[in-house]
């Protein structure tokens, strides 16, 4: 065993990169679920974002345009989900699963011409004196802009839900859509906007995979990241700060186990890979034992003004 070959500095830097896509997707899904809608189509929206972002970045040679296009594509796909569930009152679970399947198929189709192509990737930011701090600089201040944007997004969502009137309305809609409706709030409109935001975030997360983390387009490349994002929302018991903890935990364990192996440490790989899910179950048990499970009360229920 030789732990000395693992550099904690590079390890933390890797964890930040590997956590970013799932953090983006999870914070978007948190807002969706806070409004009382369960969208299981995260995987489909992520992979659509991955392929559209990649295509846009290749064609314009600008990764930032790629990210913008990915957010748009994710939002567009989620619009389908929003119309089906909010206006046509289709079952949210079935529609969400359908969205995942449709997204996987659609992305494979769109991505055919982009296989094996290299994309422009995001440059690492140089934050001046901060980047030059030995150790800490490499750990925290030498990443690309999306890493910081994802953290800012978590902070923004937290502040929005906690301190703004709009955030309060969104939470009210999620807790009891009938009461919110009786008070005159537009339940469907609020949910539509939340779903679009969730789609855009998932699209960004997908594009981060195809433009930065891998970086290339391969069919099926999200490989379950969308499902991990869904698990993180539950793990976080619907709180923004815990999304960050969850994302770094899930992303961190993957990177850590690979690093431990690379350093020749004998680790039970399967157990370590399963551990974030075990922790999620444990969190669920603890919060339900405490009585308050944190899930929005109207989560997954369809709303129609006539009810």
């Amino acid at each position, binding site marked *: 065993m030789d732990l000395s*070959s693992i550099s904690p500095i590079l390890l933390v830097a890797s964890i930040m990169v590997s956590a970013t896509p799932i953090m983006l997707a999870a914070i978007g899904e948190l807002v969706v679920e806070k409004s009382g809608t369960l969208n299981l189509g995260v995987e489909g929206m992520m992979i659509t974002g991955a392929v559209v972002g990649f295509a846009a970045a290749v064609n314009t040679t600008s990764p930032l345009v790629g990210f913008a296009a990915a957010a748009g594509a994710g939002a567009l796909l989620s619009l389908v989900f929003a119309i089906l569930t909010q206006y046509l009152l289709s079952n949210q679970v079935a529609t969400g699963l359908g969205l995942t399947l449709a997204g996987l198929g659609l992305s494979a189709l769109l991505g055919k011409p982009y296989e094996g192509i290299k994309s422009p990737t995001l440059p690492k930011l140089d934050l001046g004196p901060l980047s030059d701090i030995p150790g800490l600089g490499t750990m925290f201040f030498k990443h690309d802009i999306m890493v910081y944007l994802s953290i800012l997004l978590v902070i923004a969502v937290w502040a929005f839900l906690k301190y703004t009137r709009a955030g309060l309305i969104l939470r009210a809609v999620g807790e009891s859509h009938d009461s919110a409706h009786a008070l005159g709030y537009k339940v469907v409109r609020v949910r539509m906007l939340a779903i679009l935001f969730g789609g855009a975030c998932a699209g960004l997360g997908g594009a981060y995979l195809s433009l930065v983390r891998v970086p290339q387009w391969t*069919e*099926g490349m999200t490989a379950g990241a969308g499902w991990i994002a869904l698990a993180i929302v539950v793990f976080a018991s619907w709180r923004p700060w815990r999304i960050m903890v969850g994302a770094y935990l899930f992303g961190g364990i993957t990177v850590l186990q690979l690093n431990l192996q690379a350093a020749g440490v004998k680790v039970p790989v399967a157990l370590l890979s399963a551990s974030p899910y075990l922790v999620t179950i444990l969190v669920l048990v603890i919060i339900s034992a405490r009585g308050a499970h944190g899930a929005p009360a109207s989560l997954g229920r369809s709303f129609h003004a006539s009810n």
Partner: protein
Amino acid sequence: MKRRTLLAAVAAAATLTGASAWAEAEVTAGFIYIGTPGDGGWTYEHDQSRRKMEAHFDGKVKTIFQENVPESADAERAITQMAIAGADIIFTTSFGYMDPTLAVAEKFPNVKFEHATGYKRSDNVSTYSARFYEGRAVQGHIAGHMTKTNKIGYIASFPIPEVIRGINSAYIHAKKVNPDVEFSVVWAYTWFDPAKEADAARALIENGADVILQHTDSTAPQAAAKEAGNVITFGQASDMADYAPHPRVSSIIDNWAPYYIARVQAVLDGSWESVDTWDGIDTGMVEIGEITDAVPAEVKESALAMVEAIRTGEYSPFTGPLNKQDGSAWLAEGEVADLGTLAGMSFYVEGITDEIPN
């Protein structure tokens, strides 16, 4: 037109065109893929070979395929579906389809099955594989010469004989030219997960490896190596020429087309029998992709000499003296490993510090 009549008309048209296509073909060949043809590696080559085979028979053979079939109970369902759909011969192209293939084969005695990289056969199940370890020997040789940190990273998929053989073969030949060389093995427990493969490559590079060998299917490790700059890689299963001349300095290419053509021909002729095929560089099933100029000329020359020696049968990558990892003797001086031991190889050779997970 009413919606229902429209649907009925579309369905009828689909059945008709489908039926006419089926009527022309004498044989239908099915393929089960672990990933997608777009992986740029393992499944890509199977799919290329499928196309070549179909083109070779010029309409006499129709091919069908299903991609992204997990190595679980789903595999049995997918293979069964293909047999019901009328496939006469089904190629199942991943190790984990071994037991599902045998289970389905028992239910469809008139359908021929061909399982890639496995070791279980029956009257209507053949197995076929390539001696990838011959290519690994060449990679190890180049890697041993090229590494400056003396650390070679290896992204392994599952602890099965095929993968272990590859690690051993690469190690033996890297060690031969560079006694200080060390192997770091990462078990990814997946054949295809670009993000995880990229992470694994980065973890190895961060731990000092400057050569990355991969036994997973996507080109993600190549991209990670390119990003790192001073790291070299080898194409796996497919040429991965997009990453040449650097980081990809050579590759192992699986060429299944001649085998697929021969086996489907056998079905057409009615001469198909259950066989075990294990071909290598000699028959062209394993090809070594172009060694680029990033490799010094004398290393390239000795690597090509090794390819030639393996092709003519003059040299076998597992030639003694070799000890097992625990130090016990395996092959005496000049002794060549028998194919049976290699087929079921579940031990490392002496010098590898990794432990095979169980």
